[in-house]
């Protein structure tokens, strides 16, 4: 009894300290700034961006692709960890699911920022045409949102019931909310059976849904006649890239939460070591697809391909390109191959590097290609040859990132990020040496 009490005390959501309050306030301020900038954009139109008739997709789209990619972490951790019943997953999976929920919701919102006529959103449903990849997105994103939410929610039920009891004296109001969301969980065998079955179904569903989501996202590009997009590599390239972005984000967030909530006893170096191996695996796979994408076309040296690649290797986006390849891929691989590199602190920095690299990677996929059309850009104003985001675009984009973090922060504040019931069961099981069924 004693043990499980400390467990609940440790793992129950805690009030923010000073740092937490500052963090949340900062995120709220950035979000509000972004909302104001967006309202201004709606009033004035997209002239407030630096996009033009050639570079007509900018960081709004690359940011959207980044969110979609990062939201893959839920699917990939479930696929790799839950279904293979890896024991070390327990403290990690819920964080992955929280990131997924936050990112996919923000992906749905960010795509609208790029619309010239957000007021006509309904036309997608009134006049939607199935052969357009955008409609595929319109279908798969809400589906994925629902699946992610359910996958987060169902395993929470026992914990919510525990929290209801835990807070019944200290925070009756909060306790009531937990009670409502726990759907009268009593832990009876019947309930457990239904819950396990549901979780199992959703855990299986999220894998194809995640793969479809990433692939549709890749097809948004590869269905178009553009050098750098028109590639059969795209689907797999995006899936592997999404694993990198997602696991990178996971490492970073796990580190911060562990530190902020003092969970060192639950998320140990052992977990970081495993996560590090996971991340390096995804990076290696991604490297493979990058070689396909960036090196192999050099052999046939089709003129358009070579122009495009040289533009990346040594053109105006070269510094960014090399930063993404070296900083976002090569360095993480090298560091993570060493055991010392898989300690929590270095992992945090590597995770951060990977996330930043992944964000810029999406930019490099979207914009340089647009600046290399088949027919040269000619007879247009000088500014149409380049693209760098405007203040509006930056403020709005940062706000979407802040909002994603805000969703994560909110969920971390009110949910037990490490499953209490399961951890208790596991501790019980190790004591009695009985294997635990998932």
């Amino acid at each position, binding site marked *: 009894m004693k043990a499980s009490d400390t467990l609940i005390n440790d793992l129950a959501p805690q009030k923010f300290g000073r740092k937490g309050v500052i963090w949340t306030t900062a995120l709220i301020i950035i979000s509000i700034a972004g909302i104001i900038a967006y309202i201004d954009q709606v009033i004035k139109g997209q002239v407030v961006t630096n996009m033009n008739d050639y570079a007509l997709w900018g960081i709004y789209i690359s940011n959207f692709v980044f969110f979609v990619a990062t939201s893959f972490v839920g699917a990939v951790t479930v696929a790799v960890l839950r279904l293979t019943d890896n024991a070390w997953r327990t403290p990690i999976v819920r964080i992955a699911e929280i990131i997924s929920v936050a990112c996919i919701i923000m992906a749905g919102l960010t795509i609208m920022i790029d619309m010239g006529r957000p007021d*006509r959103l309904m036309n997608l449903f009134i006049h939607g045409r199935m052969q357009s*990849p955008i409609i595929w997105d319109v279908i798969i994103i809400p589906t994925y949102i629902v699946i992610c939410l359910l996958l987060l929610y169902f395993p929470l039920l026992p914990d919510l019931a525990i929290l209801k009891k835990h807070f019944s004296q200290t925070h009756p109001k909060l306790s009531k909310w937990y009670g409502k969301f726990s759907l009268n969980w009593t832990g009876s065998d019947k309930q457990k059976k239904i819950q396990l079955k549901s979780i199992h179904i959703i855990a299986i569903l999220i894998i194809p849904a995640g793969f479809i989501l990433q692939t549709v996202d890749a097809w948004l590009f590869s269905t178009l006649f553009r050098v750098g997009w028109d590639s059969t590599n795209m689907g797999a390239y995006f899936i592997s890239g999404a694993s990198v972005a997602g696991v990178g984000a996971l490492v970073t967030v796990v580190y911060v939460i562990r530190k902020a909530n003092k969970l060192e006893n639950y998320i140990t170096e052992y977990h970081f070591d495993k996560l590090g191996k996971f991340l390096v695996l995804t990076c290696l796979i991604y490297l493979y697809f990058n070689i396909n994408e960036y090196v192999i076309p050099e052999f046939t040296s089709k003129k358009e391909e070579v122009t495009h690649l040289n533009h990346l290797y040594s053109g105006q986006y070269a510094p960014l390109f090399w930063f993404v390849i070296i900083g976002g891929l090569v360095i993480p691989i090298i560091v993570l191959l060493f055991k010392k590199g898989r300690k929590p602190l270095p992992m945090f920095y590597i995770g951060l590097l990977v996330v930043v690299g992944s964000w810029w990677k999406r930019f490099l996929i979207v914009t340089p290609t647009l600046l290399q059309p088949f027919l040269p850009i000619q*007879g247009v104003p000088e500014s149409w040859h380049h693209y760098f985001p405007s203040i509006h675009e930056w403020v709005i984009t940062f706000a979407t990132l802040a909002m994603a973090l805000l969703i994560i922060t909110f969920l971390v504040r009110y949910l037990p990020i490490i499953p209490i019931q399961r951890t208790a069961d596991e501790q019980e099981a190790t004591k009695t040496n009985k294997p635990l069924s998932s």
Partner: protein
Amino acid sequence: MANKKTENGSENRRNFLRLGLMSSVSAVAGASLISNLATGEEKKASGEKVRVLTPDGKMVEVDAESINNYPEAVITPEESRKGIPDKKFVMVIDLSKCKNARKCVEGCQKAHKLDDHQEFMKVQLMQNNEEGSPYWLPKPCFHCDEPPCVTVCPTGATFKRDDGIVLIDNERCIGCKFCITSCPYSARTFNWGHKEKFDDKSQPYSPETQVPAAEGTVMKCDFCPDMLRQGKLPYCASSCPMGVIYFGDKNEDIVTNGTETVSFSQLIKDRGGYRHLEHLGTKPNVYYLPAVNRQFPVERGFDVDEEILDRYKDVPIVKEFKEQGKL
């Protein structure tokens, strides 16, 4: 019922065509009716009745005299989806005659109320290979028969008509810009912000004129169906002083640049006509006649405003010319 309609259509087509675009081959006098229409020299009160096609596809009988006053009916977005019956429009651009006079660009811009930098017709300076001599290439929308822009449009705001024309309904467009990225010929432009002229509703909106334009929506060359319905040439074709741009109907196998009317297939065959980026399979309806036996040296094309010349300053061949002091 449908059968009868077709019958009627084909029977009447001859008359309409005689009247309209592709005139002189069947016209006895051999004079182009297009120029007749333009100058108003149609047979005066001959009492001769001719049948013409109204915008909504009905045949009406009118006095030959009154043809010039053909009513400019507004084609609503719904009607504009149908296309002009039995037509298959095609454009042929003769590169050997182009000297970058930019009259096509200006004529088109004026008619569509476009701003300085918004060009449905762009003139590009091309060079096929290192040895090849540079030439000017006027580039409208190619009104592809396999248009990627139509395929990817999520709302059907971009659509392909039976007469081959690809149009945009700016009342339906959501501004996703997917069609712009899909077009391999960079034919599309976007209205990034609001402009005062968009508020001028004196002329009701029609996808066939694209006036008034709307913020956050896409525009491009429309092949000027409003002119075609009146039996006139698109603005670019009629504005070109060199007669570079031929326009016509593939079904009738005739194209004209306003002064000369020729057989489309013969022209393509004799002059080695080709389409841009044929290998993409988009099947454009704009053909080019190669820039051989030029009427003008390419330098003549630099005889434009300083500001416009400046827009070409990054083109390698322009840099070369500058070094050689040709500019």
